[in-house]
């Protein structure tokens, strides 16, 4: 089949961002007045001519997406992966016609439905029943279509009893289930999905993935963005890797995923100052990560020690920040979260640059490649002050010495627990 339903050529999306110019610490009133006046005149000009209003002294062009070209055939399930800020959401927004491209063109054949969020337009005051109709209409279903599928939707969401209750009284689980159920019953020719599976409990997530698989099996075209590599691997035969707004790789999903995850730097000392894929409030910045075996050796072994040092900068003083790091397996699934507060470290008030060290003894991960994400959050675990994701890779080697005779393969498991063994019967006493 060479029936192309989406063809993108030289697609680009430009945003203008304003920067505050250099401010002298010493300002004269005259300068302030002059600058504000200049700013006001410019804003007024922009308003009158209908241009975008930009705050700041210097204007910079920023291409969220540049020179993106690809084709999607009918019935294909295409995964789109990339780190935060790589342009995935921008691409989806263009394809679902929410925003227009600044350059290039896309040709789309057929009805597109986009699911960039579950429960778009849900109104808390309206009942479950009313919201199904509302949300369905927003997603592009006709009234007759919703009516036909209504029972199916309700059964899928398992909220039969609460249909006439305003959704503001729903538990968050019920809310999400109902929202996803509506979306899952969309029947467009092309479905654009962004990370909606990251909701609900594990049981429901499985159900959603199952539904996605079903949709894909019906020969519909699906574009699927996710950070869940397992889901991508299972749903998509082909994947696009976006990096810095450009397509870095476009082929079968397995090699693309491997390439994506190999981004993490396998080095004992990693500079994170300019790492882009991070969740941050700006209150802290992790600038480097170092690790060794606790004795300045660079090789990490099973059963040995791991010493991790996080260097961070706090522009303003912070009270009792919590430090930690996550160890993920090679596909990005988190395995273990280490946390300074759980282990009894209270940092007090910190500011400026600092280093913090954690020592993990008797590492019990099977030998293989693991990924690391250091993090800093506030004392109440409410906000990630900084969280550069999957930024470091660590190779755990077969043990030598004490555990040297143990054979552990990655394929057999991930974590080793020592156990006490004895033969209960069948042996000669």
């Amino acid at each position, binding site marked *: 089949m060479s*029936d192309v339903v989406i063809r993108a050529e030289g697609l680009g999306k430009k945003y203008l961002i304003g920067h505050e110019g250099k401010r002298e610490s010493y300002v004269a009133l005259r300068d302030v007045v002059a600058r504000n006046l200049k700013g006001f005149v410019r804003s007024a000009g922009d*308003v009158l001519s*209908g241009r*975008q*209003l930009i705050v700041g002294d210097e204007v910079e062009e920023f291409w969220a997406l540049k020179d993106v070209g690809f084709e999607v055939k*009918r*019935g294909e399930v295409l995964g789109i992966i990339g780190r935060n800020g790589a342009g995935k959401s921008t691409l989806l*927004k*263009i*394809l*679902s*016609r*929410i*925003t*227009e*491209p600044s350059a*290039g*063109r*896309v*040709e*789309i*054949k*057929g009805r*597109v439905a*986009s699911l*960039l*969020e579950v429960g*778009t*337009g849900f*109104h808390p*005051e*309206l009942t479950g029943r*009313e919201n199904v*109709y*509302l949300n369905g*209409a*927003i997603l*592009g279903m*006709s*009234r007759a279509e919703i009516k036909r599928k209504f029972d199916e939707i309700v059964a899928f969401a398992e909220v039969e009893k609460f249909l006439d209750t*305003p959704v503001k009284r729903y538990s968050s689980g019920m809310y999400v289930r109902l929202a996803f159920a509506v979306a899952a019953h969309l029947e467009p*020719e092309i479905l654009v999905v962004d990370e909606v599976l990251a909701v609900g409990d*594990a049981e429901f*997530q*499985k159900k959603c*993935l*199952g539904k996605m*698989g079903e949709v*894909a*099996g*019906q*020969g*519909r075209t699906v574009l699927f963005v996710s950070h869940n590599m*397992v889901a991508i*691997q*299972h*749903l998509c*035969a082909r994947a696009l890797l976006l990096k810095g707004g450009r397509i870095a790789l476009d082929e079968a*999903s397995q090699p693309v995923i491997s390439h994506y995850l190999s981004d993490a730097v396998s080095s004992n000392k990693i500079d994170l100052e300019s790492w882009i894929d991070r969740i941050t409030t700006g209150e802290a910045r992790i600038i480097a990560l170092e690790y060794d075996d606790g004795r300045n050796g660079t090789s990490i072994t099973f059963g040995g020690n791991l010493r991790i040092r996080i260097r961070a900068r706090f522009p303003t003083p912070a009270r009792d920040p919590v430090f930690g790091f996550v160890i993920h397996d090679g*596909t990005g699934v988190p395995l273990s979260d280490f946390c300074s507060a759980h282990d009894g470290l209270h940092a007090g008030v910190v500011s400026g640059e600092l280093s913090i060290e954690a020592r993990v003894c008797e590492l019990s991960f099977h030998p293989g490649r693991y990924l690391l994400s250091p993090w800093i959050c506030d004392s109440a675990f409410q906000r990630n002050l900084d969280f550069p994701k999957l930024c470091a890779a660590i190779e755990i080697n077969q043990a030598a010495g004490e555990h040297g005779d143990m054979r552990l393969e990655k394929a057999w498991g991930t974590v080793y627990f020592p156990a006490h063994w004895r033969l209960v019967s069948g042996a000669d006493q």
Partner: protein
Amino acid sequence: MSTLSSELSPPDASRGREPAPSPASERVIILESGRAERNYWRDLWHYRELFAILAWRDVAVRYKQTAIGLAWALARPFLTMVVFTVIFSRVAKLPSDGSAPYPILVFAGMLPWFLFSSVLSEASNSLIGNANLISKVYFPRLVIPSASAVVALVDFAVNLAMLALLMLWWGFLPGWRVILLPAFVALAVLASLGPALWITALNVKYRDFRYIIPFIVQFGLYVSPVGFSSAVVPEKWRFWYSLNPVVGVIDGFRWCLLGGQSQFYLPGFLVSLAVVAFFLWFGVHYFRATERAFADMI
């Protein structure tokens, strides 16, 4: 990992790639920078169900969880009528149109004014109020402000019923002209939709424009002939006075409702009509021009 994969069919087996049958009349959409949507108006028609459901949502939400929901719609015009009658008729001693009772004169002017002002305020805040929809789903954005105007029409219907009761009370019945009333209702909505579209589009970019609305509504109540007949305006100013589009609308309402008692000033009405048409064209034009960038700015 394995729990997830067990729920899923293996990647290649189930996907036998039975392509969905392609409808013969499949539409090709081309997305390009600065490309005006060719099928915009057809699209708008296609989304009429969304329009209906959004309008229904706004009405439902408005009357849910308000203890005296309908009473608000009744109290506001009634109290305004009483105050205006006292001030303009008793204190300022302004004349009514012919023999029409002053309260009915006031009410007939207030109906279109409230319709105009509530469409204006509902519609101009509508895009901001629906920011989550705009940044997540595509549909012709014109659906949102126009659906929000429906709420104002519901209130208007309530007020109209009140006027009918008042007229019965005074035994003052309108003549045949009342059948033209729907045309003036439409005119009131269009008069307000023009500026509303412009302001709501501006609001997306510059939030300070929303502060203009309460000002227009408050100020407009006094510069428009709501509490008095536009016949009290001196003849030489009347033409210029009609540049306010609401003047034409209110005059039309009074002409319909007060029978022959209200004089119809044709040149003024035509001026109002022209102003309405201009604002409507300008509002739609500006809205359409900026619409494509709404999601980037909201």
